[in-house]
């Protein structure tokens, strides 16, 4: 069995005080302009974008590594160190080709699920506590296609290529 996320991945919503509540219109406009420039700056560099994605991935995996058994109240195991390591390796490979995960979630099967959603196309990689890695791709008009990922650099690379082709098609 493989984890299939809901159509809309769970995004973290972080609290940020709104400068619009404390600043006048001119200051707000200036802040907005600076904010837009900084986002443009971040997005304009592949290195900065991927470094931020890798740091975010590491932060998320660290959170998942602290999950205890029964984290979902349905008796699921928390991800093992090995599942976290494999997921980290996969995430780095995916980010290196521009595939930034939309969500990194604990799997109800025990392990880590790395999820992508791109305009009606989905893909997940599930790194299970058993050491097994499963991948699935699907879209609105396509039945899910799942496969076991061979545990080797070539197996990882082949899956990265399949997912990249699917999501950028």
């Amino acid at each position, binding site marked *: 069995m493989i984890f299939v996320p809901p159509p809309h991945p769970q995004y973290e919503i972080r609290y940020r005080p709104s400068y619009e509540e404390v600043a006048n219109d001119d200051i707000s406009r200036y802040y907005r302009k600076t904010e837009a420039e900084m986002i443009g*700056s971040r997005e304009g*560099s592949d290195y900065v974008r991927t470094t931020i994605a890798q740091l975010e991935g590491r932060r998320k995996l660290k959170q998942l590594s602290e999950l205890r058994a029964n984290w979902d109240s349905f008796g699921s195991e928390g991800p093992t160190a090995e599942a976290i390591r494999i997921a980290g390796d996969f995430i780095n490979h995916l980010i*290196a080709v*521009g595939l930034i995960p939309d969500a990194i979630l604990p799997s109800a099967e025990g392990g880590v699920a790395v999820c992508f959603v791109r*305009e009606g196309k989905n893909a997940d990689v599930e790194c299970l506590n058993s050491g097994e890695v499963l991948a699935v791709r699907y879209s609105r008009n396509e039945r899910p296609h799942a496969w076991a990922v061979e545990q080797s650099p070539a197996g990882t690379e082949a899956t990265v290529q399949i997912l990249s082709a699917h999501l*950028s098609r």
Partner: protein
Amino acid sequence: MPADRHYPHAPITEALIDLRVRYSDSISLERLKEFGAGIRDLYPHSGTRDVVEAEFQAEAGARSTRASSSRKTVGYIFHTADKRQAVQARLDGFTFSRFMPYENWANLRSEAYRLWNVFVDVTKPIEVQRVAVRYINQLNLPLPPGGLQFEDYLRTHPVIGPEAGQELEQFFVRLMLPQRDLMAHLVLTEALLPPQNPETVGLILDIDLFRDAIAFDVRSKEIWDILDMFRTRKNLYFEASITDAARELFT
């Protein structure tokens, strides 16, 4: 001050040339894919370039707000097999990037020029509206037991008034510096990376030089002349931003 030095272990993690364009008609993602198909022999890996759009709705009198987000593809990124180079074709333009190990400006410029001509042939933009050269350096500064003094390695860095405590855990500095003779702006960003190991501190030194509000013909030689001048100016700011102790780290 040497403004054009070559370092055997240059800390450049990404050097890029960015050209923003305007098309005569609406450009399709399909056309951008055609560009990718044309360069597939050397850039076989493709991925999407996406933006996440968030929307918040608050209705008058309602107690809660609704938030939704969606990911929208705005272009594609194509990497070489060794992932040392990448080119982006987006709805707003073209970017060529060289990652570590950096070679030299001549190679960066000539490959960008070659790919740009393919991009122009396939996507047919009518003018260039913004040109930029950007170099992102990562300096791994040794962390001595007593703590790091940034002024040992940096000549441009944040300063805390001496009466206040001097301990610092994180900083992000962004300076926008007008370059009136080039009709351009230089954005110099310095930021600390989260600690990766106990012996060094990773510091990003990002120098982004751009001119916007322009309308150059897509085949104009002037674009490439400006990029050459930007690269020289970038070198000047890079050298002006570091000390000899920093230079020793990458020579």
